[in-house]
């Protein structure tokens, strides 16, 4: 209770930051708002650390702040982990925003909304009742929608993206609200502890319905296939600091919602719930990684990769629930720790990647990989940081992606032998899906780093690129540094993750991973010493470089041009492009991607044997969008057209409707009386 003022101070500071951002003149607007946002993050993070350290929940109640429902704050360790995650993403994203502001974040609206968005993100995991949660959740959705729309004047794509996002986020919110309402209808109170105390008394079918509604609702926020369609549209169009917050933090809160409803409030359930989560996760991981491997727009690639990473986290979450329902608490705890670790790691490297994509866009004016190239030489620091983050997301040791995927692999490998029929089918499939995903992620990020940063510039913008402002580099550097720290010394954060997992698994008594310098699975066979791996790599690389320098008495290096098949001169167009790099993937996964390819050949007038021009068009749209949502939209449009028969615009007809209705009412009254 004593630490409660930290949460209040954080919220107040956040709102004040919004007011400052909206009020000050353009020059100081974003910077002063950013200072207050950092203060808000610091307050909330301090509250979260307090909860983590003492284990005492922060509980606040105010009946007067909002009439009728009141405001309830309850910050437990699970929420605290997510508050820390949001603060960890928001601080660098805001720092990046200071440099980025001139490119579309320094309008009154943007500088006022951005702090509010961060504040909502910080407060959602601290919400303690249905009304508070839904209020903050909707505010978060609305503020992020405004920020997606900030550059609405720039292109039609932005408006379309915002429409898709609005539909999905509000559709999801409706489902979540229905789920909460079903729960509150059966209990007296509306705070989460009250709900969870009564949730066990509900009929299994009702509990199942609540879980499914929440899964779809939160899944649409988390970018789970098939509710992911808004992600590859909204993420590229939003300003990069906003995309980083949306992808790193907001999407993670979708997973937080699933854990909140499934684990904390409903207290876990039958295995079919969790197998559904696992299957959705595996589908998302595969679909996201295939699309990421074939995308050529850098931010679109990152958005699909978000779907892929959230899919992995859901595989872990589903496996955890499944192990719990088959009475393997140790495996369940390990899988849950893996899930939370994956989300933490994702926040670090995805935010870093989105921010560096923003830096690239600022420096070159493009985010199309086929317009970039040669950036490592022109923007050495941004380029290096991008490479580090890309290596982290590709799960290369000794970076953090490796630790998360190692935990997930271990929990699934040990879980494959628990001897239940559903598990025997689902777990190996999840394992293979995960293996394929890991490979495709490597393809996607070799492409992003190789095509974007190596080679020669493919456009004037890329050729003229210069290093971006120091705040932007520092922001990406913080996050890339977090990737290294989380990868080399994960035992610093694993205790926090385990405490958060303990909220969702109250029966958990021992930590599933030992807290030493090396990670040792408790009760299972499995050992990883990330620091030793990192040290070994550094020593090995150093030894090879050193030995080469000492031993090899090489003649002076012979400078020659790169081999280009003997052509007289080489241009940037002779390089591998992102499309050609992705072509094999596109060919193999033809059935999933369903690319649209057109080749127009126009022949010379004199003879058909001479070609005048060739036009090749290749586009990879989202198959789910085309096959599911466009049909839904067409059906809705048909219904709308049908409704126009009743509403043709004629006032006489409307008056006739009114008269007819009155006549019918009177006639029926006369008959009934």
């Amino acid at each position, binding site marked *: 209770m004593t630490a409660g003022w930290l949460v209040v101070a954080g919220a107040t500071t956040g709102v004040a930051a919004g007011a400052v951002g909206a009020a000050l003149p353009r020059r100081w607007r974003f910077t002063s708002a950013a200072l207050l946002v950092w203060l808000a993050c610091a307050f909330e993070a301090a509250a979260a650390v307090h909860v983590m350290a003492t284990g005492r929940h922060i509980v606040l109640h105010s009946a007067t702040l909002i009439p009728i429902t009141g405001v309830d704050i309850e910050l437990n360790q699970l929420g605290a982990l997510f508050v820390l995650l949001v603060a960890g993403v928001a601080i660098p994203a805001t720092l990046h925003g200071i440099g980025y502001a001139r490119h579309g974040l320094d309008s009154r609206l943007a500088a006022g909304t951005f702090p509010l968005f961060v504040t909502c993100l910080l407060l959602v995991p601290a919400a303690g009742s249905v009304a508070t949660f839904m209020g903050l959740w909707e505010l978060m959705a609305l503020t992020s929608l405004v920020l997606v729309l900030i550059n609405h004047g720039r292109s039609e794509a932005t408006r379309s993206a915002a429409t898709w996002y609005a539909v999905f986020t509000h559709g999801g919110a409706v489902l979540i609200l229905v789920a909460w309402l079903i729960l509150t209808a059966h209990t007296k109170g509306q705070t989460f502890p009250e709900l969870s105390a009564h949730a066990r008394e509900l009929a299994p079918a009702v509990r199942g319905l609540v879980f499914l509604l929440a899964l779809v609702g939160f899944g649409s926020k988390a970018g789970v296939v098939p509710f992911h369609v808004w992600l590859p549209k909204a993420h590229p169009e939003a300003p990069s600091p906003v995309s980083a917050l949306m992808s790193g933090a907001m999407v993670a809160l979708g997973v937080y919602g699933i854990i909140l409803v499934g684990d904390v409030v409903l207290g876990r359930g039958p295995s079919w719930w969790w197998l559904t989560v696992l299957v959705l996760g595996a589908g998302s991981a595969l679909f996201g990684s295939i699309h990421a491997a074939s995308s050529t727009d850098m931010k679109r690639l990152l958005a699909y990769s978000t779907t892929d990473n959230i899919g992995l986290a859901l595989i872990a979450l589903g496996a955890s629930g499944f192990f719990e329902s088959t009475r393997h608490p140790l495996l369940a705890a390990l899988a849950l720790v893996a899930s939370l670790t994956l989300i933490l790691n994702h926040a670090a490297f995805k935010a870093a990647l989105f921010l560096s994509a923003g830096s690239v866009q600022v420096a070159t004016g493009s985010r199309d990989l086929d317009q970039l190239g040669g950036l490592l030489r022109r923007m050495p620091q941004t380029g290096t940081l991008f490479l580090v983050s890309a290596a982290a997301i590709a799960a290369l040791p000794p970076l953090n992606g490796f630790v998360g995927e190692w935990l997930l692999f271990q929990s699934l490998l040990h879980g494959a032998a628990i001897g239940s029929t559903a598990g025997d089918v689902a777990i190996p499939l999840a394992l293979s899906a995960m293996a394929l995903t890991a490979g495709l992620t490597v393809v996607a990020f070799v492409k992003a780093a190789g095509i974007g940063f190596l080679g020669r510039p493919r456009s004037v913008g890329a050729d003229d690129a210069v290093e971006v402002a120091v705040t932007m580099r520092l922001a990406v550097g913080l996050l890339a540094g977090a990737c290294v720290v989380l990868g080399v010394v994960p035992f610093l954060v694993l205790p926090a993750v385990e405490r958060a997992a303990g909220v969702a698994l109250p029966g958990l008594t021992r930590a599933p991973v030992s807290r030493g310098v090396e990670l040792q699975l408790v009760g299972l066979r499995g050992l990883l010493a990330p620091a030793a791996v990192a040290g070994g790599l550094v020593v090995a690389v150093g030894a090879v470089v050193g030995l080469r320098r000492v031993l090899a008495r090489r003649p002076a290096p012979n400078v*020659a041009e790169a*081999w280009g*098949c*003997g052509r*007289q001169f080489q241009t940037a167009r002779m390089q591998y492009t992102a499309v050609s790099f992705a072509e094999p993937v596109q060919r193999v996964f033809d059935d999933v991607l369903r690319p649209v390819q057109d080749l127009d050949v126009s022949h010379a007038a004199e003879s058909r044997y001479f070609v005048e021009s060739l036009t090749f068009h290749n586009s990879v749209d989202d198959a789910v969008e085309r096959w599911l949502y466009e049909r839904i939209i067409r059906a809705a449009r048909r219904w709308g057209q049908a409704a126009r028969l009743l509403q043709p615009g004629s006032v006489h007809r409307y008056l006739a409707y009114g008269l007819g209705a009155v006549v019918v009412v009177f006639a029926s009254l006369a008959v009934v009386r």
Partner: protein
Amino acid sequence: MRALWRVRRVTEPAGGVADRDAGPPELVGSLQIRHVDAGSCNGCELEIASAFGPVYDAERFGARLVASPRHADALLVTGPVTRNMAVPLVKTFEATPEPRIVIAVGDCARDCGVFHGAYGVVGAVGDVVPVDVSIAGCPPDPTAIVDALRGITRR
């Protein structure tokens, strides 16, 4: 399988080799070759294809065609050097790591043959890059090509 049985072995017997001192000692035993068509009529190409085919099978003797001069020890150049191919030939030569040798295949490569003095021809291969081994003939017989290669690989 039956066809395989009926045809039996088609490869020419490996005879003795005349010239055994053609190349540098580093290339003895294994010779990676990049073929460069500097303007040939494709007659020599047919014979090269045949020299590396199942009948003459030059790979028996350690010679192998590769896809890039970066992987090659030797350039197998055919045809008179045309204006368009002069620079690419030099670039290919420069891209080949040392020790390297150049083998001029056919009369055109040796002295421009029937294309001598033609307007599009810069000259023979020897006028553009230093030639180490020449193979005469228009086109040369596959056995001549194989013999020349064996002179370098000494197998």
